[in-house]
């Protein structure tokens, strides 16, 4: 068993390197070339040739001789899903480096794919820790066409070229920039022309592998006919075994590879007993064979023994494990056998596929079973299998493969299945691919409408409504989402916890957007309870995500923290990969910490949340967390980091994200501009997004309106009055929907405005109101962010216990004054000149002396003094000096 449970369900046969045949033609000159490429530090060895040239044999021979630790990965079509590809990639390399990719493997197993640079960075870090460089064989790379896979490989290899060497076996050149690698001497190539058997090698072949007495002339003819093609030589050898007149047989060979191959395959086949011929033809439809499956397909009972016979007879059978259970045919051979099967038993092929499908579905291999049903044209059975297994198929990271089936199904068949379309709609909803969601919804509805009314129809109707409600609420269509969610709950059976959980999630999310706090909380808590009953982990986490985000919006820190912590405990007990929303859940704990002034706790949780969000490639979570991280950085005056966070958030938002993220992002961007001292830019951000100081206050953009309050404060008395009017409107609006934290913040901003206007008593009144609202949930940070003026007012609120607590928080702000480490708690920091003026005043210089010292006019000094008084919230010099010392500025 692997150290990571998520990897337990992988097909182990994909890692199995075929055995090196005891009798073979050794190719030391080619092995030497490959080994030399390793020593020279090249990053890719490309063995590129059509089928049957001996690519795998050469690779196996090399692997037995190299001293480099190596792993093997047999690729198939399903590996075009990048999440699946990199999961198997990691699992393969774990055979030689057990902890490789452990962190991200769990997410990949759930079909979650981090962004390319994140994935490459994570894996590169692990490779750097490897004690030795590694070698990975990728067999049959020609089946991979997905550019995301190639881009990911390239990104990884380019980061750690010295740590990982890829040996690529392929029938066609892969979509790597091979020409560039070639030019940089980073590529070793073995091509078809190199793999052709030489005269000496052909002699060796017919001496050691298939011993035959052949003259030099016969060997020359064989070389000419087969052109040194290994598969041709092998088939010719098998055809000649037991013949008397080898010379005549060899002379009879002519034509192209394809002709020779077809001819020789028939020859080899017809030399086998009838029962073997029948066995080979029928089983040619299978990608992988074992005894029991072959028995079911052929009607025999001795298939296991037959397979061993075929292996011993060198009949192109390749073992896939060490226990002799599973095999496959060499691709070329099986293709030819299948074409012979079509010719001789074409009308029975569908029946064979159906037998295979039945066995595979009975033995837990539903994916392969569907393949065979589709090949048989048995669409009804294929759909039945998909419907039974759709959620596990999609949840198990097989989206790419299942998507391929959907495209292969005739449209009229796809349109018959409600369940399959619902399954797809759900997966695409989770991936925010709304266009595909709409398509599959439409299909699901049509399918339901075209079916006769059955007892199960109401349940299907409820399912459609539940998913539709979730879709509508992500689109911001709140009323429609509420209606659909309520109807889904009405139709759903009382005991159908999964469906009721899904509907409750949608309804709760919509109620949250409608600002119906109490109802939303109740509904989402019910959703969580139902999903715990049904063990629907994903829906449960999504419900928690909605609940905690809403709780934070409404300032209910305790509710947010409790819900987040409960869900994390649930996560610990669950074997499944954490769903993408887990990043937000950790970030919620970070936000609670931040609001309570616990900066290190905040940072730790947010960084953890961000990492998990990046693992899962869940952009909405990344945007939400980065918006919050920017706030932390702004408080620390780290504008560079704040900008990095905001840039990433905006980039992802513009690429396509849910609308509910926008108001928070706008507010933070405006706060950033204001903190940098660019009031004009802050104002532009707000105006461009339709947030104006006059007119209706639209929630949830409440925080953005508060930035207006700060901007208006700089516009003199009229601005202050306008700002106060705005805070009153914010308070009124927030109170109607119980957004107590917004009411608190508005009161705090009122206090700032009033204090700046020298209306201290009114300012104290507003501050007390803010403190009263802050106390139940433990808000500290908003007061620290408001800075000096609030610290000054708090002095006169000392009768309130909570005021003293906030004062303690101010006093605990670090006072280190190094240039690198100083953290100004002022929302608008003193400029260097203002600080210089204040320093000189604190030393006892007069205004005139300061002017002389700084070589500026007296008016200029007065101007700077006015500015620093305003920022510190004071009205006289002694208080300015006192406040500056308190804040560690002097």
């Amino acid at each position, binding site marked *: 068993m692997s150290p990571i449970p998520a990897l337990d369900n992988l097909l182990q046969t994909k890692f199995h390197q075929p055995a090196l045949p005891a009798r073979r033609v050794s190719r030391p000159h080619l092995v030497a070339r490959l080994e030399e490429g390793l020593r020279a530090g090249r990053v890719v060895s490309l063995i*590129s*040739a*059509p089928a049957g*040239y001996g690519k795998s044999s050469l690779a196996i021979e090399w692997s037995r001789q190299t001293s480099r630790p190596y792993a093997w990965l047999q690729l198939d079509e399903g590996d075009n899903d990048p999440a699946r590809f990199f999961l198997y990639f990691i699992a393969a390399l774990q055979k030689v480096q057990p902890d490789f990719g452990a962190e991200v493997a769990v997410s990949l197993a759930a079909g979650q794919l981090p962004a390319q640079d994140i994935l490459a960075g994570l894996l590169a870090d692990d490779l750097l820790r490897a004690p030795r460089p590694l070698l990975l064989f990728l067999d049959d790379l020609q089946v991979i*066409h997905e*550019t995301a896979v190639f881009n990911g490989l390239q990104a990884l290899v380019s980061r750690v070229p010295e740590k990982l060497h890829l040996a690529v076996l*392929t*029938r*066609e*050149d*892969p*979509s790597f*920039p*091979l*020409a*560039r690698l*070639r*030019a940089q001497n980073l590529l070793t190539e073995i*091509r*078809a*022309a190199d*793999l*052709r058997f030489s005269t000496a090698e052909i002699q060796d072949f017919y001496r050691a592998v298939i011993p035959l007495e052949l003259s030099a002339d016969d060997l020359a003819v064989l070389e000419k006919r087969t*052109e040194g093609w290994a598969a041709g030589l092998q088939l010719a050898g098998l055809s000649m075994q037991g013949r008397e007149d080898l010379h005549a047989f060899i002379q009879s060979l002519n034509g192209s*590879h394809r002709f020779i191959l077809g001819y020789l395959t028939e020859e080899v086949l017809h030399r086998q007993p009838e029962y073997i011929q029948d066995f080979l033809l029928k089983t040619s439809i299978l990608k992988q064979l074992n005894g029991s499956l072959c028995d079911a397909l052929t009607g025999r009972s001795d298939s296991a023994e037959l397979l061993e016979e075929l292996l011993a007879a060198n009949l192109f059978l390749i073992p896939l494990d060490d226990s002799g259970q599973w095999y496959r045919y060499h691709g070329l051979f099986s293709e030819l056998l299948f074409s012979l099967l079509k010719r001789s038993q074409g009308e029975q092929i569908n029946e064979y596929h159906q037998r295979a499908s039945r066995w595979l579905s009975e033995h837990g291999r539903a994916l392969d079973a569907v393949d065979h049903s589709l090949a048989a044209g048995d669409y009804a059975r294929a759909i039945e299998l998909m419907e039974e297994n759709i959620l596990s198929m999609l949840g198990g990271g097989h989206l790419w493969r299942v998507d391929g089936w959907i495209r292969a199904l005739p449209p009229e068949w796809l349109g018959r299945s409600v369940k399959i379309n619902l399954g797809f709609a759900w997966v695409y909803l989770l991936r925010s691919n709304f266009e595909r969601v709409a398509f599959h919804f439409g299909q699901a509805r049509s399918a339901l409408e075209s079916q006769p009314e059955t007892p199960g129809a109401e349940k299907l109707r409820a399912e459609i409504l539940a998913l539709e409600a979730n879709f509508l609420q992500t689109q911001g269509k709140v009323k429609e989402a509420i209606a659909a969610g309520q109807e889904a709950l009405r139709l759903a059976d009382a005991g159908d916890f999964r469906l009721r959980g899904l509907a409750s999630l949608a309804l709760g999310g919509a109620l949250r957007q409608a600002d119906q706090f109490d109802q939303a909380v109740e509904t989402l808590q019910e959703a969580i309870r139902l999903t715990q009953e049904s063990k629907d982990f994903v829906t449960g986490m999504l419900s928690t995500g909605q609940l905690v985000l809403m709780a934070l919006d409404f300032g209910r820190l305790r509710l947010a923290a409790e819900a987040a912590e409960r869900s994390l405990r649930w996560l610990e007990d669950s074997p499944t990969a954490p769903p993408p929303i887990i990043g937000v859940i950790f970030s919620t704990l970070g936000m609670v910490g931040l609001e309570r002034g616990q900066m290190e706790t905040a940072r730790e949780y947010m960084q953890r949340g961000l990492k998990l969000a990046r693992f899962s490639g869940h952009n909405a979570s990344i945007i939400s967390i980065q918006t919050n991280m920017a706030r932390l950085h702004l408080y620390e005056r780290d504008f560079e980091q704040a900008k990095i966070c905001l840039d990433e958030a905006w980039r992802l938002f513009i690429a396509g994200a849910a609308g509910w993220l926008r108001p928070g992002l706008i507010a933070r961007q405006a706060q950033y501009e204001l903190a940098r001292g660019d009031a004009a830019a802050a104002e532009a951000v707000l105006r461009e997004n339709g947030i104006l100081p006059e007119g209706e206050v639209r929630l949830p953009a409440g925080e953005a309106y508060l930035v207006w309050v700060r901007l208006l404060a700089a516009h003199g008395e009229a601005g202050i009055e306008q700002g106060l009017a705005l805070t009153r409107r914010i308070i009124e609006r927030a109170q109607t929907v119980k957004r107590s934290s917004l009411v608190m913040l508005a009161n705090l901003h009122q206090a700032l405005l009033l204090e700046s206007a020298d209306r201290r008593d009114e300012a104290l009144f507003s501050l007390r109101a803010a403190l009263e609202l802050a106390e139940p949930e433990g808000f500290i940070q908003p007061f620290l962010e408001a800075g000096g003026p609030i610290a000054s007012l708090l002095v006169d609120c000392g009768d309130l216990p909570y005021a003293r607590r906030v004062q303690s928080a101010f006093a605990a702000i670090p006072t280190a004054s190094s240039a690198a480490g100083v953290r100004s708690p002022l929302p608008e920091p003193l400029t260097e000149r203002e600080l210089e003026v204040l320093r000189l005043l604190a030393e006892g210089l007069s205004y005139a002396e300061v002017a002389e010292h700084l070589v500026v006019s007296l008016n200029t000094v007065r101007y700077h003094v006015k500015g620093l008084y305003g920022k510190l919230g004071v009205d006289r010099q002694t208080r300015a000096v006192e406040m500056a010392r308190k804040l560690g500025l002097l």
Partner: protein
Amino acid sequence: MKPVQHTPDSTSEYTIGVYGRLDEEFISAFCPPGTRLEQEGECARLSGIYADQAAILGLLRQLHNLGCAIHWMQARPVDQEE
């Protein structure tokens, strides 16, 4: 002089016409040395591509992935001594 061979492993000189725009960056990353690019309006002509069959298949797939529609292609088996 060895006779020209018509096998998948032998080298041919290919010329490909595609609908779409290509640039030198693509040539230097994905095409064998000596490949020439001529852009003729909305069509690109790649010439002087010396490759075996596996290589040309890979190049065609790369063009396909870039959204280029293959317009025409010519292959000229080359003398082994060229």
